[in-house]
Structures are given as structure tokens and as C-alpha cells.
């Protein structure tokens, strides 16, 4: 009997897993942004002594995972599983990053929703009794993502005003069956929503309906109300997507617009850093969650949040063939105290 599944999309944990430690590493541009002081490490340059952007991204993820384990004081052998993913073909950054850890690994592709997807599965596997300590992580790198999804950087193509800036960064969360919070109490898993947007330079608009759908599902018949949360934090809708999501939710009668904030909006200073529609990439919500949000919860400035990372699930071939962008959003409910 699936007695923890309370609605079609939402599960409620009997023994909510604790977030016992997090870590985050970001690139220089992110480190120059408004959330600078919340990140554990800020790189001086995007290559970090590596020969390629891809190697640099793997190193950032590897070091971030090492860092979260070291900070927790647990031996590597205590980690039961890693759930991680990134944007590169076949999740290569994660595969290389985790190569030397010896820890059992589930690779995920959820595009920019990966951090919430990894947290969801880690929490489920712990509450299910399959593991005690699990790491969830995600990474992205501006240069490797531009090369794969848009144009080579050498071409110097101008960016569209609706486009978002892929964050160079990573975040890792260590979840445990024992701990004193913050706790993951509920997980609402997204459905794929595709409203027919096919402009890869406007992913915020493509993802906004998915975010709204998952947020609605989270409050639908679960006994949870928007007032239970300080903030509903979407992954990387950016300025354009956040406005659309807010519109859809108010039209659906959910009064949450004053609670909606977005990682892609917060991570950069829009005017000073010229990022157009905001930040994006797996590393955007991963670094903002594991840096800013976690630390604000620990210090007590935030108590309860709904973390809703959003992903645009296209690939380069589907975009070239003019297909629309299937999108998804996963929600994770986090409480400081039970």
C-alpha cells in the first residue's frame, strides 16, 4: 500500500528526512551578484585550472560534493547514494565528477529542475528505509551550456533580450534519516506541461505553466495552504516566467503572488550584470537553495519554504526541428521545525 502518497502528485513523509549540511560553489559572475556572501566558494575564473569548460564543470561538482561531506564530518563510507545531474549530454559532468567517489550513484536529467528532483528522490529513498545518508546535487556552467545549447562562445553572438544567463555553479545537499532539521516534509512531483512555446531563448515562458501546475497541485487537497510558507521559491523562471506564473496562479484563484520569488531573479543584479531575463541552469536553483535559502533557514530568517525548481526539457535536435519545449517543475516542502 502506498500509504504515504496523499494525492496524485504529492507524497507526505512519515519520518521527514533532515537536511544536515549543504555546500555551494559558484563562478565569478554569480559571486559578484547580490547573493555573494551566501556561497561557500567563489571561483576567480570559469576554467578553475582545467583545460576545458566541461572539465571545469565536473571539478566544481566534485569539489562541491567533497565539501558537503567534509563539512558534515561524516566519513565518505557513510554516504549511501548520490543523486545528481547536469545539463551536458548524457549528464557527463556528473558522471565524471562522481567517478572517483565510490558512492552508488543515480544520474538524473531534469534540466534546471534537477536540484528539486534530486531532493525529492533522496527524501523518498530515506523515508522508504533504503538509505540513511544521501547527497543530492546539480551543476551547470555558462560556457559549456552555451556551447551545447546555443552557439560557440567564439562566435560572439548577441543574446536575445528574453534569454536567461546559465549560472556557473553547483550545490550539494546532504540529507539524513536522523537530524534536527530543516526537514523535507512533502514532495510534489511535476507533470510534463507543454503549452507550445518553441523559442529556446524564452525558456521562462515555457516553464511558467509547469511551475504554476505543480504549485496548484501542491495545495490541492493536501491540507497545505499558501500561508504555511514564508516563500514559494521557483527555480529559474526569470523575470518573464515569474510574471507569467504569477498571472496563471492568480487567475486560478491561488493568492500566492506576494510569496513568489525566483532563484533566477535573485542570483544576479539585472541592471548591473546585464543578464537580460535572469539566471537559469541546474546550478542556479542548486546554488541558491544550498547557499542562500538553506542558510536563511538555519539562521531563522526563513522557517518554511516551498522550493519549486523548473526545467525546460528540450534538446538541441528538438529545437532545430522546431518542436515545442516540454517543461516540468518539482516541488519540495521544507520546514525548519516539525
Amino acid at each position: 500500500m502506498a500509504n504515504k502518497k496523499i494525492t496524485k502528485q504529492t507524497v507526505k513523509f512519515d519520518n521527514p528526512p533532515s537536511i544536515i549540511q549543504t555546500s555551494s560553489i559558484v563562478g565569478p559572475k554569480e559571486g559578484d551578484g547580490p547573493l555573494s556572501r551566501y556561497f561557500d566558494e567563489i571561483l576567480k575564473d570559469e576554467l578553475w585550472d582545467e583545460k576545458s569548460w566541461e572539465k571545469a564543470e565536473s571539478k566544481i561538482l566534485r569539489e562541491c560534493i567533497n565539501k558537503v561531506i567534509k563539512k558534515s564530518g561524516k566519513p565518505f563510507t557513510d554516504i549511501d547514494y548520490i543523486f545528481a545531474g547536469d545539463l551536458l549530454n548524457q549528464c557527463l559532468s556528473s558522471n565524471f565528477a562522481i567517478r572517483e567517489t565510490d558512492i552508488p550513484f543515480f544520474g538524473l536529467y531534469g534540466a534546471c529542475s534537477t536540484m528539486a528532483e534530486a531532493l525529492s528522490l533522496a527524501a523518498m529513498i530515506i523515508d522508504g528505509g533504503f538509505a540513511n545518508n544521501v547527497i543530492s546535487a546539480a551543476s551547470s556552467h555558462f560556457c559549456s551550456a552555451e556551447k551545447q545549447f546555443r552557439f560557440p562562445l567564439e562566435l560572439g553572438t548577441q543574446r536575445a533580450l528574453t534569454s536567461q544567463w546559465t549560472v556557473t555553479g553547483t550545490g550539494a545537499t546532504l540529507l539524513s534519516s536522523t537530524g534536527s532539521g530543516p526537514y523535507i516534509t512533502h514532495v510534489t512531483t511535476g507533470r510534463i506541461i507543454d503549452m507550445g512555446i518553441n523559442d529556446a531563448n524564452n525558456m521562462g515562458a515555457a516553464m511558467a505553466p509547469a511551475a504554476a501546475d505543480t504549485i496548484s497541485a501542491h495545495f490541492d487537497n493536501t491540507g497545505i495552504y499558501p500561508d504555511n510558507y514564508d516563500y514559494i521559491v521557483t527555480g529559474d523562471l526569470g523575470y518573464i516566467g515569474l510574471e507569467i506564473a504569477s498571472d496563471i496562479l492568480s487567475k486560478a484563484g491561488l493568492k500566492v503572488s506576494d510569496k513568489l520569488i525566483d532563484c533566477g531573479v535573485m542570483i544576479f543584479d539585472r541592471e548591473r550584470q546585464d543578464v537580460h531575463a535572469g539566471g537559469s541552469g541546474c546550478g542556479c536553483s542548486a546554488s541558491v537553495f544550498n547557499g542562500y535559502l538553506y542558510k536563511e533557514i538555519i539562521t531563522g530568517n526563513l522557517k518554511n519554504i516551498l522550493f519549486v525548481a523548473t526545467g525546460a526539457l528540450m534538446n538541441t535536435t528538438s529545437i532545430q526541428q522546431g518542436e515545442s519545449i516540454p517543461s516540468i517543475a518539482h516541488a519540495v516542502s521544507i520546514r525548519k521545525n516539525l
Partner: protein
Amino acid sequence: MDYLRAFILGGTICAIGQLLIDKTKLTSARILVIFVTAGAILTGLGLYDDLVAIGGAGATVPLTGFGYLLTKGAIEDVNTNGLLGAFTGGVKAAAAGITAALFFGYVISILAKPKPKS
């Protein structure tokens, strides 16, 4: 006066490209192809020669000028060598430009390192 005319015509062609980037969803690669093709078609219709007469390098240096060169070369080669010239003339006329692009592209790729946009 030549400089001014070249500046105005070249600037106008580039401004059209900028408008296409800003106001449409066309990628830079598509705009590139549109410009080369537009230059070729205008030359075929006999119109681009007038632009070159007015703007000189302002008309030949932008991407439309590459289309102009291809078509002009093809037409001239057909006149001297027959129909086969339609296949050989364009690349012959543009050989210096194509080789220079390959050569300098290669040299610069060795000398320079890619950096993130700022």
C-alpha cells in the same frame, strides 16, 4: 566623400542585421545565410552593382558583398567558359576571401583562448 558613402551604406546594411536580431527570432546563422542569399539575388537582378557604385566597400565588405562576389563570379565565368562557369565561377571569384577566412580563423584559434561573455 567615398568614405562617407561607404560608411552610410555599410552602416545601413548592418543596421538591417541588427533589427533582424532584435525584432525577430532569427538566429545569427540564419541572418548570415539570408544576407549572402540576398546579395546573390540582388546581383542576379543587376541591382547590387548600383549599390557597389554608390557605397564601394560599404557594399562589398558586409555579408551581402559575399553573395555579390559569388554571383558576379559565376556570371563572368559563364560568359567566358560556358555553363560550367555557373559552378566554378563563384568560388573562384571568392577564393581569396574564403582562404583568408580559413587561414586567419585557424591562426587566431591557436593564438587566442575562448572566454565567457561579460
